[in-house]
């Protein structure tokens, strides 16, 4: 009984982990290229969740169709934020960008609250499910999984096979050298910032395929913490590392939930949140370069 439950949970965790991973790629991309930590990460995912909510309730279409819209919204926000604020702070102490991205997240939360109130909302997009015997998976979750893997593969292809992607990798390696080779470093910064935020907002849409309820302006806080754990698992600077970090985190989160649920007197949900925080500290302490890389 317990094993069946555990294997079901782990399977679900792997599926959710792919979405988590995709949701963290933007964070790692921005940190890798600009050395800016997007502390408002969760707020951008929240915007994505509202995109799919509006697509479903407002336009009456399948919420997954909000994905390209969310990507564009995120990229637009990214360009605006980069050219008004971040560009002036690249050379400032880290404190400045930490606080600026944090404040931008707060602006997003408060703006959404103004438009959509702080009421928690959700939708019910039922397109059937598939029974694996040990666990049941709705097609919506399968779509989220497939979407995440597809986006991760696209990003991989873009970084390795296109000139634009390779130019961005050059900037990560050596921004001075990239400048000498005629790469417009300033534009690469802007592009990767907006691409990172585009990915983050888009991941909010995929997330609602998984958890279509509890959409409210302050939902992002928990995801910011999870994204940091995942990014640190993956080494913080690499988008692929982040993707695999997401898979690992999904497994650990759901696995630990099953274990905590076995211990009487514990609230498994809250303990899982606590566990992810402990995990963050432990990894930062012992493997600050991530699980996948050698020191």
């Amino acid at each position: 009984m317990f094993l069946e439950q555990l294997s079901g949970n782990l399977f679900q965790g792997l599926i959710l982990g792919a979405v988590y991973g995709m949701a963290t790629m933007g964070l790692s991309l921005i940190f890798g290229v600009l050395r800016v930590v997007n502390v408002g990460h969760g707020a951008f995912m929240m915007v994505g969740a509202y995109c799919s909510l509006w697509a479903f309730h407002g336009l009456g279409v399948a919420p997954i169709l909000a994905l390209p819209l969310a990507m564009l919204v995120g990229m637009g926000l990214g360009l605006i934020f980069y050219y008004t604020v971040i560009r002036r702070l690249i050379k400032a102490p880290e404190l400045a960008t930490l606080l600026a991205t944090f404040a931008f997240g707060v602006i997003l939360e408060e703006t959404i609250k103004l438009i959509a109130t702080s009421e928690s909302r959700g939708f019910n997009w039922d397109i059937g499910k598939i029974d694996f015997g040990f666990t049941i998976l709705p097609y919506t979750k399968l779509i989220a999984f497939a979407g995440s893997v597809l986006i991760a593969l696209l990003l991989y292809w873009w970084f390795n096979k296109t000139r634009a992607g390779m130019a961005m990798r050059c900037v990560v390696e050596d921004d001075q050298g990239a400048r000498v080779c005629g790469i417009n470093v300033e534009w690469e910064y802007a592009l990767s910032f907006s691409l990172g935020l585009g990915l983050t907002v888009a991941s909010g849409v995929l997330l609602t395929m998984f958890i279509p309820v509890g959409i409210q302006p302050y939902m992002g806080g928990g995801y910011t913490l999870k994204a940091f754990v995942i990014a640190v698992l993956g080494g913080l600077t690499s988008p692929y590392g982040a993707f695999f970090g997401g898979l690992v985190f999904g497994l650990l989160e759901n696995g630990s939930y099953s274990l905590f649920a076995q211990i009487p007197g514990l609230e498994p949900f809250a303990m899982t949140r606590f566990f992810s925080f402990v995990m963050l500290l432990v990894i930062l302490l012992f493997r600050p370069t991530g699980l996948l890389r050698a020191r």
Partner: protein
Amino acid sequence: MGAARKYAPLLPVLGLYAALFAIGLLVPGKWQLIAQLVFYCALGQAFNLFMGMTGYVDFGYVAFMGVGAYGMAVTVSSLSDKGLGMGVIGIGLILSVVFAILLSLAVGAVALRLRGAYFAIATIGVNEGFRYLIEGARIWNGSEGIIFSSQLRELIGREAAMSLSTFWADVMVFGVAGIATVLTIVYMRGKIGYALAALRMDEDAAKVMGINVTRFKIIAFITSAALAGLLGATAWAVKLTYVYPADVFGIHYTVEAIIIVLLGGAGTLLGPIVGGLIYGVSKYYLAVYLPGFQLLVFAPVIIAVIVLFPEGTVGMIKKNLLGTALEKYIL
């Protein structure tokens, strides 16, 4: 530097606090507003002691206030039938400081090994993590929190409990602000202040010069946390006579601390008080005229301050007073 000149910057700070206290006592109906303002000033000062002096941002700062509030709540609710009277409040204050220091040691042991962005990432989950530990493992009543108003009445009587939470709790916050002021100037004028100034400029260079940066970082971190513990115990636990985990670990108190320090000027003595007053007064009037919009106003203000005048109000005043007779009063 003579002692009089060394401690001259205390004058405007203590003057402001004395003025606030006098206004609160003499102008009827303004005590609550004054109490709120002093809370913000004290919060700014406590936060500034670490963030302002080191340049490290601790996003989980509110956790120290939270455990401080719990220290007081646990003490009062478990010692209420021992007949110790007001002594229990004293024990509660001590326990709140102990809790905050223990947590700061645990967090600092990991986070203070890290720098810049990594430090911020390590601390951002501390408040949430601790809140979920309390709720998840059902420590101290779990998510139901601790309500100890009846125990407090039993302990010191109805009248005294009433005046404790409506008046004396706020006076204690004044006390915490006073302690924070004294500690800040002692640190700034002492070896630790110069060491941390060097660290803020260039941590590697400071290390090479033989400064034990780790030691001074830890001292500033623990001091700042202990003050936060006292604030949580006085401004929250004693004043409200209840503690809920969802309230006392809310990240928006960290946000408020950041806004106050930035507005006033990070790393200055007078800054957090000026920032606290600006923030408190504008929040008060925003709540009257634009309820619910406070954060929507303050978040762009943070960005504007960072981009346009990162040195804050007091930093600008200091620049303008350079070379005048007033210079020695501004730090």
